[in-house]
């Protein structure tokens, strides 16, 4: 980084008062997390908060989980590069979540069955082997998916505080934030996650709304619109134009990913639904959360748009233009993920900046804690427990889950330091998530709504999701789906959204064909397989749950 870049990045209003605000907030969060440790004795409490979460707290925790700092960062990046056209992703997310809330699509039947995790549904419907396979695919995708959370979130912190100008700061911020989350998640489980999510919701919503109003006030709405038009033309507004970086294929891919999967299939969101006190509460939670699901994309999109306008159309941001949008032939552009935090650091006044930064750290923590807890509990409940021949005591389960959380923390740090990809962060997320959800979406949907779905069909459906690995950029390059021309231009034979949509189609076809070719025998229970010891011992699974067949329409 040259001297001009270092100087430009160090310009921020973040001061001592802001640091104090952030530290106080972190201590309060940690204190709350640790204070409920004593309730985390049983697995149902540790993973599902005793299934006693009310609607409003459910909305807070759903928002806290799904509106993470990584979401803020990648959505701002999309706004910076795509302008207002990026808003379509948020609109689709909001409408999809509202649809799930109004109809109870997928989550309603799951809550009625009183399962704790999605793989637990697989076992009730298809047998133990599908549960373990589904859990393995889920964990592979989920853990890959959160690989860049830490790095991206930390980039916000160093960008907004001016630390981006110091080479080693990013690594230290990553280690510090990760340690904090690991401490309270490991000790308090879902109860501490939900309570801290509430505090994080309060800080986050105040930060999001006030920073947005301030940005409009400082830049002016008409200047923002004019600025986007000057930089991106009509493509900055119309997502259906291919030149916008989106287009119809991308929009359809978003309908699948953010419209339905993000709310009804993604395990961290579903885990919230399954912790609610009733199905009615789940539906209310989803209806209200549709606003959060839209806001989590659109508000950060707007911050990215404001950053673009600030850099390209205001004198105050002129020194950043050469960094983020250099003339051809000059030094390569700085990672555009930094654009939004640097803009926020310059726009907001001291103290206010501290509150917004605390809100963003809140977003970071609330996502990390939920993801750690969700993936580790899937390994414990859905892979280890079903495979164990002997009873698996509650204390051992909680202990194993805690160890897994720590191991995942180590992995996330490693991945953040060493993964190299050129995809936008959001596209990386959609692709890695797709490894799980392209198969799971189909198997869940067909398993719930079509009685004829068999365990063999489910097996094929889940495995076909692995085709999504082909959309991961290093894999695309390795197998020749993406290559560089002699002039240095990168060409894709199939884009990630195209691979995603093809994978969903293949999964549907294979699940249907597999179910028709090898239907389950009617006399042998789920898939003709034995149910696991854990499932047969668990009263909420074996006594109260209706079968998927009963919920079929």
């Amino acid at each position, binding site marked *: 980084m040259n001297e001009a870049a270092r100087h430009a990045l160090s310009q921020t209003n973040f001061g001592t008062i802001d640091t104090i605000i952030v530290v106080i907030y972190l201590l309060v969060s940690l204190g709350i997390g640790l204070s*409920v440790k004593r309730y985390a004795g049983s697995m149902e409490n540790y993973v599902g908060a005793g299934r006693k979460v009310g609607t409003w707290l459910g*909305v807070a925790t759903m928002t806290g989980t799904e509106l993470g700092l990584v979401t803020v960062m990648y959505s701002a990046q999309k706004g910076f590069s795509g302008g207002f056209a990026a808003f379509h992703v948020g609109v689709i997310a909001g409408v999809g979540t509202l649809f799930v809330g109004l109809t109870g699509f997928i989550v309603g039947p799951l809550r009625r069955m009183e399962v704790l995790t999605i793989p637990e549904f697989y076992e009730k419907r298809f047998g133990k082997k599908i549960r373990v396979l589904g859990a393995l695919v889920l964990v592979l995708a989920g853990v890959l998916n959160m690989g860049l959370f830490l790095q991206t979130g930390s980039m916000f912190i160093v960008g907004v505080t001016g630390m981006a100008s110091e080479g080693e700061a990013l690594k230290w911020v990553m280690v510090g934030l990760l340690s904090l989350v690991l401490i309270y998640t490991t000790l308090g489980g879902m*109860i501490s996650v939900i*309570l801290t999510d*509430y505090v994080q*919701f309060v800080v986050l919503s105040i930060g999001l709304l006030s920073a947005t109003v301030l940005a409009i006030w400082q830049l002016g709405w008409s200047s923002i619109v004019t600025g986007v038009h000057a930089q991106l033309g009509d493509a900055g507004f119309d997502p259906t134009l291919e030149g916008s970086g989106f287009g119809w294929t991308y929009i359809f891919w978003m309908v699948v990913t953010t419209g339905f999967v993000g709310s009804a299939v993604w395990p961290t969101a579903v885990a919230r639904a399954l912790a609610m006190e009733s199905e009615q509460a789940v539906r209310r939670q989803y209806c209200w959360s549709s606003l959060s699901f839209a806001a989590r994309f659109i508000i950060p999109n707007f911050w990215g748009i404001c950053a673009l306008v600030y850099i390209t159309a205001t004198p105050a941001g002129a020194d950043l233009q050469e960094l983020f949008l250099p003339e051809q032939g000059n030094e390569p552009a700085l990672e555009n993920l930094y654009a939004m935090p640097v803009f926020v650091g310059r726009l907001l006044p001291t103290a206010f900046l501290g509150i917004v930064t605390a809100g963003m750290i809140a977003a970071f923590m609330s996502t990390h804690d939920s993801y750690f807890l969700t993936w580790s509990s899937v390994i414990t409940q859905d892979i280890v427990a079903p495979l164990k021949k002997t009873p698996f005591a509650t204390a051992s389960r909680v202990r194993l889950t805690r160890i897994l959380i720590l191991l995942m923390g180590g992995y996330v740090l490693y991945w953040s330091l060493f993964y190299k990809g050129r995809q936008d962060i959001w596209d990386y997320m959609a692709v890695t998530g797709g490894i799980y959800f392209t198969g799971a979406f189909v198997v869940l949907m067909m398993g719930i709504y079509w009685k004829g779905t068999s365990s063999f069909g489910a097996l094929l459906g889940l495995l076909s999701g692995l085709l999504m690995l082909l959309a991961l950029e290093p894999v695309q390059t390795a197998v020749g789906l993406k290559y560089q021309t002699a002039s240095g231009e990168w060409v894709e034979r199939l884009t990630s959204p195209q691979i995603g949509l093809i994978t969903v189609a293949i999964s549907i076809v294979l699940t249907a064909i597999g179910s028709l070719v090898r239907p389950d025998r009617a006399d042998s229970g789920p898939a003709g397989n034995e149910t696991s010891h854990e499932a047969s011992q668990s009263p909420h699974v074996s006594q109260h749950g209706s079968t998927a067949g009963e919920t079929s329409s």
Partner: protein
Amino acid sequence: MNWSLIWLVVFAGLLLGFGMMAVLVIINGARDIRRLLVHLEESDGSDGDQERSE
């Protein structure tokens, strides 16, 4: 199609809706937390009683 007008309406509606929801969640969420803690306290106590009787 006037995209800039559409996005203005979407954005203004979202800010209004999200702001309203935030107020409701902050007020009612606190009540839900109280209920959750009371429940956990009770189940904690009954678990303890059960363990003692065993």
